[in-house]
């Protein structure tokens, strides 16, 4: 761990480069470096599509398929969200990435006192299946996959996605949802947790178990190193914690008696792209290798395709600045380049106005165009892993691999990932690193354009998305209407069944789908979990 910085002499000559993961970069790299690290092409990288997949998971890379573009979208009412989805799809976006408002993420209905002031603010409000029917209207759910940024109540939202698909006439087997569904990372960063560690991980196990047969094209978990990095973790910690978190979910499903090859291939990942670009590229290459090795050596996964690290590499939120916001457009373009050079399956960018509020249609389209022009104009589809064989990149990839392993060992020594999260050990490490980086910025060791260098110039104004205060009223009205129209006896029956199954410790997914179809509310379903599981007690940090 380190504050990423340059050591310079008085003439601005760089004497040393220290990356955030603690690696020192040399002025130049030669074949001797590869010799020093014991570089072996077959063992360390191998051809694209070949174990350990350092160079990528497909032999032809972006030639066989360009990346999926999936801008994070959702605000206000389901109708407004649907309108934005349609706009993005009309402009060539190839996947959806659904943002939910905070009450939904926290399992509260729009009329709950806890939801006051938050309805439809940072994403769309979802109370019942009616909202999904509006949000996904006229979207071809068999052709376009949907990322669902939901964690504590991901089981409920996945059930609701199946319910809406079936209502529209799709077979659950043809739909592809990617709920984030990663609760341990919520406890480290982002903070949208509800239930304690054990039942929360059990719910994730339920979704994985259920998806195996019912929704085989769904990726039930997207493990998010992304938010851990946003919270302050170094790139090495980001990958280390993500792999350990994924293992915790694997262990839960294995304990139910399944063969690892039945489900390991459905894991996906979400990683961050801001920071030193070489360090990020090396990080992604090392991550693919370590994940494949982890599955093969620790879990004895047999099928090659189950060893793939499939990922959304994108975002870059922490890298964006409020100062000189239009600079974020250029930052986004470089972040996209990093993602493309790193072999991302899916990508998305934070829009340039996201340091202020959620994106306008203008800024969201600009992000989409950034991704499209990179893929289609600049030659990023030409050849796989174009940086392979570089003395520098291969050395750095190997050094990154070692740093990630060191971070993993620290947690294993501490007693494992769930203990490290429950005790707040990781949270303390991450918060400390965030503070060190902030101090580095203030001391001018870590350079940030517009923040601590090149601050001069006219202030740039941006047009901002405005929150509509009528959203909450309308959403509550709509919820009340659904409640008047639904069959209360169906709701009571399905909720009772959910309660029984939850108490018995069985898989809740089938019951959740029935509750959703009866128009039970998110708050009613989550309420049953709250009552039975209780809530996570945040460990003290200071």
């Amino acid at each position, binding site marked *: 761990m380190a504050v990423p910085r340059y050591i310079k002499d008085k003439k601005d000559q760089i004497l040393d480069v220290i990356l955030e993961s603690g690696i020192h970069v040399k002025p130049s790299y030669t074949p001797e470096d590869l010799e020093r690290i014991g570089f072996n092409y077959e063992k360390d990288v191998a051809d694209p599509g070949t174990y350990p997949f350092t160079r990528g998971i497909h032999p032809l890379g972006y030639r066989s398929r360009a990346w999926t573009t999936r801008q994070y979208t959702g605000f206000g009412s389901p109708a407004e969200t649907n309108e934005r989805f349609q706009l993005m799809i009309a402009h060539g976006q190839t996947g959806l990435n659904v943002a939910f408002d*905070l009450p939904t*993420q926290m399992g509260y209905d729009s009329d709950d006192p806890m939801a006051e002031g938050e309805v439809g603010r940072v994403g769309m409000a979802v109370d019942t299946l009616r909202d999904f029917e509006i949000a996904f209207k006229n979207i071809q759910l068999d052709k376009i996959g949907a990322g669902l940024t939901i964690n504590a109540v991901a089981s409920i939202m996945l059930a609701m996605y199946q319910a809406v698909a079936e209502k529209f006439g799709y077979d659950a087997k043809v739909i592809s949802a990617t709920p984030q569904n990663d609760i341990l990372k919520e406890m480290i960063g982002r*903070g949208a947790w509800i239930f304690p560690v054990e039942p929360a991980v059990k719910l994730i196990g339920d979704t994985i178990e259920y998806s195996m047969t019912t929704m085989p094209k769904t990726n039930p978990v997207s493990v998010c190193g992304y938010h851990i990095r946003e919270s302050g973790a170094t790139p090495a910690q980001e990958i280390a914690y993500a792999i350990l978190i994924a293992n915790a979910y694997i262990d839960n499903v294995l304990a139910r008696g399944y063969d690892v090859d039945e489900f390991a291939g459905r894991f996906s990942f979400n990683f961050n792209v801001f920071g030193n670009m070489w360090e990020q590229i090396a990080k992604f290459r090392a991550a693919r290798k370590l994940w494949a090795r982890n599955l093969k050596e620790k879990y004895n996964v047999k099928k090659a395709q189950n060893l793939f690290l499939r990922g959304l590499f994108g975002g870059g939120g922490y890298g964006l600045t409020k100062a000189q916001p239009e600079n974020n457009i250029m930052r986004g373009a470089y972040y996209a380049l990093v993602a493309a050079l790193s072999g991302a399956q899916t990508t998305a960018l934070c829009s340039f106005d996201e340091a*202020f*509020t*959620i994106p306008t249609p203008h800024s969201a389209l600009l992000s989409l165009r950034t991704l499209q022009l990179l893929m289609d104009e600049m030659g990023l589809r030409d050849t796989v892993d174009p940086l392979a064989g570089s003395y520098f990149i291969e050395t750095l990839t190997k050094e990154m691999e070692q740093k990630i392993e060191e971070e993993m060992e620290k947690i294993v020594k501490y007693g494992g990932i769930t203990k490290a999260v429950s005790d707040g050990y990781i949270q303390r490490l991450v918060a400390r690193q*965030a503070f060190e980086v902030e101090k580095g910025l203030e001391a001018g060791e870590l350079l940030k354009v517009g923040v601590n260098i090149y601050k001069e110039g006219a202030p740039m104004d941006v047009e901002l998305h405005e929150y509509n205060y009528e959203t909450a009223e309308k959403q509550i009205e709509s919820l009340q209407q659904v409640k008047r129209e639904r069959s209360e006896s169906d709701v009571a029956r399905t909720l009772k069944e959910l309660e029984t199954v939850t108490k018995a410790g069985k898989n809740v997914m089938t019951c959740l789908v029935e509750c959703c179809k009866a128009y039970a509310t998110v708050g009613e379903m989550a309420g049953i979990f709250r009552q039975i599981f209780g809530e996570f007690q945040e460990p*003290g*940090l200071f």
Partner: protein
Amino acid sequence: MGEQKRIKVLIAKPGLDGHDRGAKVVAQALKEAGMEVIYSGLHKTIDQIIHIAIQEDVDVIGLSIMSGAHIPITQKLFKRLGEEGVTDKLVFVGGVIPGKDIPKLKEIGVTGVFPGGAPLTETIEFLKNTVK
């Protein structure tokens, strides 16, 4: 003048938003600057925050708000502080705060506003100069 009293600050996360990098960084910075800091943890209601502030007898309440709900949240805080008869606490706000909302926040009763990107030293100096 006798021994100077340590400034006691409650850093609080009101509402449902869980983005706490900023809150934790500010908490550590104020601590390093010699202040006594209490961190509320996530998902606190306004009543819970006021309760902690009274019980711990803090001089300052710092709210970290990233969801965009800073206006309704601060309105509610001052309404409840008024009802409780608490008038001696200085309130500052940090987070994702558009510049145009700053006058409105001041009108509601917030003394200092530090949007994302504001230097830590600014917050420290502000508290040292303003807390009597």
